[in-house]
Protein backbone atom coordinates (compact mmCIF):
# COMPACT_ATOMS: atom_id res chain seq x y z
CA UNK A 1 0.00 0.00 0.00
CA UNK A 2 2.80 2.40 1.00
CA UNK A 3 4.64 1.62 -2.27
CA UNK A 4 1.54 2.46 -4.34
CA UNK A 5 0.91 5.67 -2.38
CA UNK A 6 4.50 6.72 -2.92
CA UNK A 7 4.25 6.04 -6.67
CA UNK A 8 1.12 8.18 -6.85
CA UNK A 9 2.83 10.99 -4.95
CA UNK A 10 5.91 10.86 -7.16
CA UNK A 11 3.81 10.96 -10.32
CA UNK A 12 1.81 13.88 -8.95
CA UNK A 13 4.93 15.77 -7.91
CA UNK A 14 6.45 15.20 -11.35
CA UNK A 15 3.36 16.86 -12.82
CA UNK A 16 3.88 19.90 -10.61
CA UNK A 17 1.35 18.99 -7.91
CA UNK A 18 2.39 20.97 -4.84
CA UNK A 19 0.41 18.84 -2.41
CA UNK A 20 1.93 15.60 -3.66
CA UNK A 21 5.45 16.94 -3.20
CA UNK A 22 4.60 18.24 0.26
CA UNK A 23 3.43 14.74 1.22
CA UNK A 24 6.71 13.29 -0.05
CA UNK A 25 8.67 15.77 2.03
CA UNK A 26 6.66 14.79 5.11
CA UNK A 27 7.39 11.11 4.45
CA UNK A 28 11.16 11.54 4.28
CA UNK A 29 12.03 14.77 6.09
CA UNK A 30 12.97 13.21 9.44
CA UNK A 31 15.48 10.71 8.14
CA UNK A 32 16.88 13.22 5.65
CA UNK A 33 17.31 15.73 8.49
CA UNK A 34 19.02 13.16 10.72
CA UNK A 35 21.52 12.26 7.97
CA UNK A 36 22.20 15.94 7.37
CA UNK A 37 22.62 16.54 11.12
CA UNK A 38 25.19 13.74 11.44
CA UNK A 39 27.02 15.04 8.38
CA UNK A 40 26.92 18.74 9.20
CA UNK A 41 27.34 18.50 12.98
CA UNK A 42 24.78 21.13 14.04
CA UNK A 43 21.05 21.83 13.65
CA UNK A 44 21.24 25.10 11.75
CA UNK A 45 23.47 23.75 9.01
CA UNK A 46 21.46 20.54 8.96
CA UNK A 47 18.24 22.49 8.34
CA UNK A 48 19.84 24.48 5.49
CA UNK A 49 21.30 21.34 3.96
CA UNK A 50 18.01 19.42 4.17
CA UNK A 51 16.00 22.28 2.67
CA UNK A 52 18.46 22.68 -0.17
CA UNK A 53 18.36 18.92 -0.72
CA UNK A 54 14.58 18.84 -1.11
CA UNK A 55 14.67 21.74 -3.52
CA UNK A 56 17.23 19.83 -5.61
CA UNK A 57 15.07 16.72 -5.31
CA UNK A 58 12.08 18.57 -6.73
CA UNK A 59 14.16 20.05 -9.55
CA UNK A 60 15.56 16.61 -10.41
CA UNK A 61 12.30 14.66 -10.22
CA UNK A 62 12.07 14.48 -14.01
CA UNK A 63 15.33 12.47 -14.02
CA UNK A 64 14.06 9.89 -11.53
CA UNK A 65 13.28 6.55 -13.18
CA UNK A 66 10.32 4.88 -11.57
CA UNK A 67 11.99 1.45 -11.68
CA UNK A 68 14.65 2.69 -9.19
CA UNK A 69 14.31 3.00 -5.44
CA UNK A 70 13.11 6.51 -4.59
CA UNK A 71 14.48 6.63 -1.05
CA UNK A 72 18.07 5.72 -2.01
CA UNK A 73 17.92 8.14 -4.95
CA UNK A 74 16.71 10.86 -2.60
CA UNK A 75 19.27 10.18 0.14
CA UNK A 76 22.02 10.29 -2.46
CA UNK A 77 21.01 13.87 -3.20
CA UNK A 78 20.95 14.65 0.54
CA UNK A 79 24.42 13.14 1.01
CA UNK A 80 25.90 14.99 -1.98
CA UNK A 81 24.34 18.28 -0.91
CA UNK A 82 25.84 17.92 2.56
CA UNK A 83 29.27 17.13 1.12
CA UNK A 84 29.08 20.19 -1.17
CA UNK A 85 28.15 22.46 1.72
CA UNK A 86 30.89 21.01 3.91
CA UNK A 87 33.50 21.68 1.23
CA UNK A 88 32.35 25.29 0.96
CA UNK A 89 32.45 25.71 4.75
CA UNK A 90 35.83 24.08 5.17
CA UNK A 91 37.25 27.24 3.70
CA UNK A 92 36.03 28.91 6.89
CA UNK A 93 38.60 26.90 8.88
CA UNK A 94 36.05 26.50 11.63
CA UNK A 95 33.08 24.22 11.60
CA UNK A 96 30.77 24.38 14.60
CA UNK A 97 29.76 21.08 16.09
CA UNK A 98 27.13 21.06 18.77
CA UNK A 99 28.28 19.56 22.01
CA UNK A 100 26.38 18.51 25.05
CA UNK A 101 27.15 18.53 28.69
CA UNK A 102 27.60 22.24 29.14
CA UNK A 103 26.37 24.00 32.24
CA UNK A 104 22.80 22.95 33.01
CA UNK A 105 23.02 20.51 30.10
CA UNK A 106 22.49 23.17 27.43
CA UNK A 107 23.93 22.66 23.97
CA UNK A 108 26.85 24.72 22.79
CA UNK A 109 29.10 24.74 19.80
CA UNK A 110 32.66 23.53 19.62
CA UNK A 111 34.66 25.18 16.87
CA UNK A 112 36.56 22.48 15.07
CA UNK A 113 39.70 23.10 13.06
CA UNK A 114 40.46 21.08 9.94
CA UNK A 115 40.92 17.39 10.63
CA UNK A 116 44.50 16.37 11.16
CA UNK A 117 45.26 19.10 13.66
CA UNK A 118 45.91 16.62 16.41
CA UNK A 119 43.86 14.97 19.11
CA UNK A 120 43.76 18.01 21.41
CA UNK A 121 40.20 19.01 20.58
CA UNK A 122 38.85 15.52 21.15
CA UNK A 123 40.66 15.18 24.40
CA UNK A 124 38.98 18.39 25.59
CA UNK A 125 35.53 16.88 25.10
CA UNK A 126 33.39 17.10 28.20
CA UNK A 127 31.62 13.80 27.67
CA UNK A 128 31.96 10.58 25.74
CA UNK A 129 29.07 11.58 23.49
CA UNK A 130 30.80 14.85 22.65
CA UNK A 131 34.01 12.96 21.99
CA UNK A 132 32.12 10.59 19.71
CA UNK A 133 30.74 13.52 17.69
CA UNK A 134 34.17 15.09 17.39
CA UNK A 135 35.78 11.75 16.48
CA UNK A 136 33.14 11.21 13.78
CA UNK A 137 33.98 14.61 12.40
CA UNK A 138 37.72 13.94 12.44
CA UNK A 139 37.72 10.78 10.30
CA UNK A 140 37.78 11.16 6.52
CA UNK A 141 34.62 12.20 4.70
CA UNK A 142 34.01 8.95 2.81
CA UNK A 143 34.44 6.82 5.95
CA UNK A 144 32.22 9.18 7.92
CA UNK A 145 29.35 8.87 5.40
CA UNK A 146 29.61 5.08 5.42
CA UNK A 147 29.64 4.83 9.23
CA UNK A 148 26.74 7.29 9.60
CA UNK A 149 24.59 5.41 7.11
CA UNK A 150 25.39 1.99 8.61
CA UNK A 151 25.96 2.38 12.35
CA UNK A 152 23.69 5.37 13.05
CA UNK A 153 20.98 5.14 10.40
CA UNK A 154 20.97 1.33 10.00
CA UNK A 155 20.88 1.23 6.19
CA UNK A 156 21.74 -2.11 4.59
CA UNK A 157 24.97 -2.57 2.62
CA UNK A 158 22.95 -2.68 -0.59
CA UNK A 159 21.21 0.62 0.20
CA UNK A 160 24.47 2.31 1.15
CA UNK A 161 26.05 1.09 -2.11
CA UNK A 162 23.15 2.69 -4.06
CA UNK A 163 23.32 5.94 -2.09
CA UNK A 164 27.09 6.32 -2.42
CA UNK A 165 27.23 4.79 -5.90
CA UNK A 166 29.98 2.34 -4.98
CA UNK A 167 30.17 -1.46 -4.76
CA UNK A 168 29.11 -3.35 -1.64
CA UNK A 169 32.71 -4.48 -1.16
CA UNK A 170 33.87 -0.86 -1.07
CA UNK A 171 31.04 -0.03 1.36
CA UNK A 172 32.19 -2.75 3.78
CA UNK A 173 35.81 -1.68 3.46
CA UNK A 174 35.00 1.99 4.19
CA UNK A 175 32.79 1.10 7.14
CA UNK A 176 35.51 -1.11 8.65
CA UNK A 177 38.24 1.49 8.19
CA UNK A 178 35.96 4.18 9.64
CA UNK A 179 35.27 2.02 12.71
CA UNK A 180 38.98 1.32 13.16
CA UNK A 181 39.79 5.06 13.03
CA UNK A 182 36.99 5.89 15.48
CA UNK A 183 38.23 3.21 17.85
CA UNK A 184 41.79 4.53 17.72
CA UNK A 185 40.67 8.09 18.47
CA UNK A 186 38.26 7.17 21.23
CA UNK A 187 40.66 4.67 22.84
CA UNK A 188 43.03 7.58 23.40
CA UNK A 189 40.15 9.57 24.98
CA UNK A 190 39.06 6.65 27.14
CA UNK A 191 42.61 6.04 28.34
CA UNK A 192 43.04 9.69 29.43
Amino acid at each position, binding site marked *: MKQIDEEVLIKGAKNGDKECFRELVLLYQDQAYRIAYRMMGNQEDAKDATQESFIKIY*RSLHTFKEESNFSTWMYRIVNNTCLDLLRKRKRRKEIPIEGTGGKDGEEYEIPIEDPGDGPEVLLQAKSLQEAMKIALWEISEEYRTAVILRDLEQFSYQEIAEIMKISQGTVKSRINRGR*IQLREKLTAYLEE
Partner: protein
Amino acid sequence: MKCTIMEQKIAAFVDDSLSVEEEKHLLDHIEGCKFCKNTLEIQQIIYEKYRTMGEDELTAPVDFSVSVIDELDKQGAFAKDRESKTLSRKRESKKTFRSFTKRWFGGAALAAAGLVLVFIGFTGGEIPLIAMDDAMESSEMADDMGVATDDVSVQEVPESERARGEVYNGDSEIADGEPPVAEDSENDFGAMETSEDEVRDISPNYPMILAGLFGILTGGVWLYLRFR
Protein backbone atom coordinates in the same frame (compact mmCIF):
# COMPACT_ATOMS: atom_id res chain seq x y z
CA MET B 1 52.26 -6.20 21.73
CA LYS B 2 50.15 -4.54 19.02
CA CYS B 3 48.48 -6.96 16.63
CA THR B 4 46.83 -5.78 13.45
CA ILE B 5 46.22 -9.15 11.79
CA MET B 6 42.56 -9.27 12.69
CA GLU B 7 41.86 -5.54 12.76
CA GLN B 8 39.52 -5.55 9.73
CA LYS B 9 37.77 -8.71 10.86
CA ILE B 10 37.17 -7.24 14.33
CA ALA B 11 35.59 -4.13 12.79
CA ALA B 12 33.28 -6.34 10.67
CA PHE B 13 32.47 -8.72 13.52
CA VAL B 14 30.53 -6.15 15.58
CA ASP B 15 27.54 -6.09 13.19
CA ASP B 16 27.61 -9.79 12.19
CA SER B 17 29.09 -9.11 8.76
CA LEU B 18 31.54 -12.04 8.87
CA SER B 19 30.91 -15.46 7.36
CA VAL B 20 30.74 -18.46 9.73
CA GLU B 21 34.26 -19.50 8.74
CA GLU B 22 35.73 -16.02 9.20
CA GLU B 23 34.05 -15.68 12.59
CA LYS B 24 35.50 -19.01 13.77
CA HIS B 25 38.93 -17.98 12.56
CA LEU B 26 38.68 -14.69 14.47
CA LEU B 27 37.46 -16.28 17.69
CA ASP B 28 40.22 -18.88 17.52
CA HIS B 29 42.79 -16.07 17.15
CA ILE B 30 41.32 -14.06 20.04
CA GLU B 31 41.68 -17.06 22.33
CA GLY B 32 45.44 -16.64 22.10
CA CYS B 33 45.78 -12.86 21.57
CA LYS B 34 45.15 -10.48 24.47
CA PHE B 35 45.61 -7.38 22.33
CA CYS B 36 42.94 -8.43 19.84
CA LYS B 37 40.61 -9.47 22.62
CA ASN B 38 40.89 -6.00 24.17
CA THR B 39 40.47 -4.38 20.75
CA LEU B 40 37.31 -6.37 20.10
CA GLU B 41 35.78 -5.30 23.41
CA ILE B 42 36.45 -1.61 22.78
CA GLN B 43 35.19 -1.91 19.21
CA GLN B 44 31.93 -3.44 20.41
CA ILE B 45 31.38 -0.75 23.06
CA ILE B 46 31.97 2.06 20.56
CA TYR B 47 29.70 0.40 17.98
CA GLU B 48 26.87 0.10 20.55
CA LYS B 49 27.34 3.75 21.60
CA TYR B 50 27.02 4.96 18.02
CA ARG B 51 23.97 2.77 17.49
CA THR B 52 22.34 4.31 20.55
CA MET B 53 23.22 7.79 19.32
CA GLY B 54 21.45 6.94 16.09
CA GLU B 55 18.27 6.02 17.96
CA ASP B 56 17.76 9.52 19.35
CA GLU B 57 14.44 11.12 18.56
CA LEU B 58 15.89 13.65 16.21
CA THR B 59 13.25 15.02 13.84
CA ALA B 60 13.04 17.76 11.24
CA PRO B 61 12.08 21.20 12.57
CA VAL B 62 8.40 22.07 12.91
CA ASP B 63 6.77 23.20 9.62
CA PHE B 64 9.84 22.13 7.70
CA SER B 65 7.76 20.89 4.74
CA VAL B 66 5.96 24.25 4.62
CA SER B 67 9.28 26.09 4.41
CA VAL B 68 10.39 23.85 1.52
CA ILE B 69 7.18 24.48 -0.42
CA ASP B 70 7.35 28.22 0.28
CA GLU B 71 10.89 28.39 -1.02
CA LEU B 72 9.92 26.49 -4.19
CA ASP B 73 6.95 28.85 -4.60
CA LYS B 74 9.26 31.85 -4.28
CA GLN B 75 11.40 30.39 -7.04
CA GLY B 76 8.27 29.95 -9.16
CA ALA B 77 8.95 26.25 -9.51
CA PHE B 78 5.32 25.08 -9.49
CA ALA B 79 3.93 27.79 -11.80
CA LYS B 80 6.76 27.27 -14.30
CA ASP B 81 6.11 23.56 -14.28
CA ARG B 82 2.42 23.91 -15.07
CA GLU B 83 3.08 26.29 -17.99
CA SER B 84 5.92 24.31 -19.40
CA LYS B 85 4.08 20.99 -19.11
CA THR B 86 2.37 21.40 -22.52
CA LEU B 87 5.46 22.83 -24.16
CA SER B 88 7.68 20.08 -22.90
CA ARG B 89 5.14 17.44 -23.95
CA LYS B 90 5.13 18.90 -27.47
CA ARG B 91 8.92 19.07 -27.46
CA GLU B 92 9.06 15.50 -26.21
CA SER B 93 6.76 14.23 -28.93
CA LYS B 94 8.77 16.09 -31.59
CA LYS B 95 11.96 14.64 -30.20
CA THR B 96 10.35 11.19 -30.12
CA PHE B 97 9.21 11.52 -33.74
CA ARG B 98 12.63 12.76 -34.85
CA SER B 99 14.47 10.03 -33.01
CA PHE B 100 11.98 7.44 -34.32
CA THR B 101 12.53 8.51 -37.94
CA LYS B 102 16.29 8.59 -37.39
CA ARG B 103 16.14 5.11 -35.91
CA TRP B 104 14.26 3.43 -38.74
CA PHE B 105 15.29 5.53 -41.73
CA GLY B 106 18.73 4.07 -42.22
CA GLY B 107 17.57 0.48 -41.94
CA ALA B 108 14.52 1.01 -44.13
CA ALA B 109 16.59 2.80 -46.80
CA LEU B 110 19.09 -0.05 -46.89
CA ALA B 111 16.37 -2.67 -47.17
CA ALA B 112 14.59 -0.72 -49.94
CA ALA B 113 17.83 -0.26 -51.89
CA GLY B 114 18.47 -3.98 -51.50
CA LEU B 115 15.02 -4.79 -52.89
CA VAL B 116 15.62 -2.56 -55.92
CA LEU B 117 18.97 -4.21 -56.60
CA VAL B 118 17.47 -7.69 -56.37
CA PHE B 119 14.70 -6.65 -58.75
CA ILE B 120 17.14 -5.20 -61.26
CA GLY B 121 19.36 -8.23 -60.86
CA PHE B 122 16.53 -10.57 -61.80
CA THR B 123 14.90 -8.55 -64.51
CA GLY B 124 17.75 -6.47 -65.88
CA GLY B 125 15.53 -3.46 -65.21
CA GLU B 126 13.86 -3.94 -68.50
CA ILE B 127 10.18 -4.22 -67.61
CA PRO B 128 9.37 -0.90 -69.33
CA LEU B 129 11.19 -2.08 -72.52
CA ILE B 130 9.37 -5.41 -72.37
CA ALA B 131 6.08 -3.55 -72.37
CA MET B 132 7.27 -1.47 -75.30
CA ASP B 133 8.46 -4.57 -77.08
CA ASP B 134 5.11 -6.24 -76.56
CA ALA B 135 3.45 -3.27 -78.14
CA MET B 136 5.92 -3.36 -81.04
CA GLU B 137 5.44 -7.09 -81.43
CA SER B 138 1.71 -6.77 -81.77
CA SER B 139 2.10 -4.05 -84.39
CA GLU B 140 4.63 -6.23 -86.25
CA MET B 141 2.12 -9.07 -86.24
CA ALA B 142 -0.42 -6.64 -87.58
CA ASP B 143 2.06 -5.66 -90.30
CA ASP B 144 2.65 -9.34 -91.26
CA MET B 145 -1.06 -10.08 -91.41
CA GLY B 146 -1.83 -6.98 -93.23
CA VAL B 147 0.43 -6.59 -96.26
CA ALA B 148 -2.99 -6.38 -97.77
CA THR B 149 -3.78 -3.76 -95.24
CA ASP B 150 -0.81 -1.87 -96.49
CA ASP B 151 -2.00 -2.25 -100.04
CA VAL B 152 -5.30 -0.92 -99.03
CA SER B 153 -3.63 1.93 -97.24
CA VAL B 154 -1.48 2.59 -100.29
CA GLN B 155 -4.52 2.62 -102.40
CA GLU B 156 -6.06 5.07 -100.07
CA VAL B 157 -3.00 7.29 -99.69
CA PRO B 158 -3.33 10.45 -101.64
CA GLU B 159 -0.99 11.43 -104.45
CA SER B 160 1.04 13.75 -102.26
CA GLU B 161 1.80 11.00 -99.76
CA ARG B 162 2.88 8.60 -102.43
CA ALA B 163 5.13 11.26 -103.79
CA ARG B 164 6.67 11.62 -100.39
CA GLY B 165 7.25 7.87 -100.26
CA GLU B 166 8.83 7.82 -103.71
CA VAL B 167 11.13 10.66 -102.77
CA TYR B 168 12.02 8.75 -99.62
CA ASN B 169 12.56 5.57 -101.55
CA GLY B 170 14.81 7.49 -103.76
CA ASP B 171 17.18 8.03 -100.83
CA SER B 172 17.90 4.34 -100.39
CA GLU B 173 18.56 1.46 -102.68
CA ILE B 174 15.55 -0.70 -103.03
CA ALA B 175 15.65 -4.05 -104.61
CA ASP B 176 12.98 -4.93 -107.10
CA GLY B 177 9.88 -6.30 -105.58
CA GLU B 178 10.71 -5.03 -102.19
CA PRO B 179 7.98 -3.13 -100.55
CA PRO B 180 8.90 0.51 -100.17
CA VAL B 181 9.77 1.13 -96.54
CA ALA B 182 11.42 4.09 -94.84
CA GLU B 183 15.06 3.71 -93.94
CA ASP B 184 14.48 4.51 -90.35
CA SER B 185 11.71 2.04 -89.89
CA GLU B 186 13.87 -0.69 -91.40
CA ASN B 187 16.56 0.10 -88.86
CA ASP B 188 13.99 0.24 -86.11
CA PHE B 189 12.69 -3.12 -87.18
CA GLY B 190 16.23 -4.48 -86.89
CA ALA B 191 16.76 -2.87 -83.51
CA MET B 192 13.45 -4.20 -82.26
CA GLU B 193 14.41 -7.67 -83.30
CA THR B 194 17.67 -7.36 -81.28
CA SER B 195 15.97 -6.04 -78.14
CA GLU B 196 13.31 -8.72 -78.40
CA ASP B 197 16.06 -11.31 -78.33
CA GLU B 198 17.56 -9.61 -75.30
CA VAL B 199 14.22 -9.56 -73.50
CA ARG B 200 13.64 -13.21 -74.23
CA ASP B 201 17.17 -14.10 -73.12
CA ILE B 202 17.77 -12.19 -69.84
CA SER B 203 20.07 -13.99 -67.45
CA PRO B 204 20.03 -12.98 -63.77
CA ASN B 205 22.77 -10.60 -62.66
CA TYR B 206 23.98 -12.59 -59.68
CA PRO B 207 26.38 -10.01 -58.20
CA MET B 208 23.62 -7.46 -58.20
CA ILE B 209 21.19 -9.92 -56.64
CA LEU B 210 23.74 -10.78 -53.94
CA ALA B 211 24.35 -7.11 -53.26
CA GLY B 212 20.62 -6.58 -53.00
CA LEU B 213 20.15 -9.49 -50.60
CA PHE B 214 23.03 -8.18 -48.51
CA GLY B 215 21.37 -4.76 -48.39
CA ILE B 216 18.06 -6.28 -47.31
CA LEU B 217 19.79 -8.35 -44.63
CA THR B 218 21.79 -5.40 -43.30
CA GLY B 219 18.71 -3.20 -43.25
CA GLY B 220 16.78 -5.88 -41.39
CA VAL B 221 19.50 -6.33 -38.78
CA TRP B 222 19.73 -2.55 -38.34
CA LEU B 223 16.00 -2.26 -37.72
CA TYR B 224 16.03 -5.22 -35.33
CA LEU B 225 18.89 -3.79 -33.27
CA ARG B 226 17.32 -0.35 -33.13
CA PHE B 227 13.95 -1.51 -32.04
CA ARG B 228 14.63 -4.49 -29.82
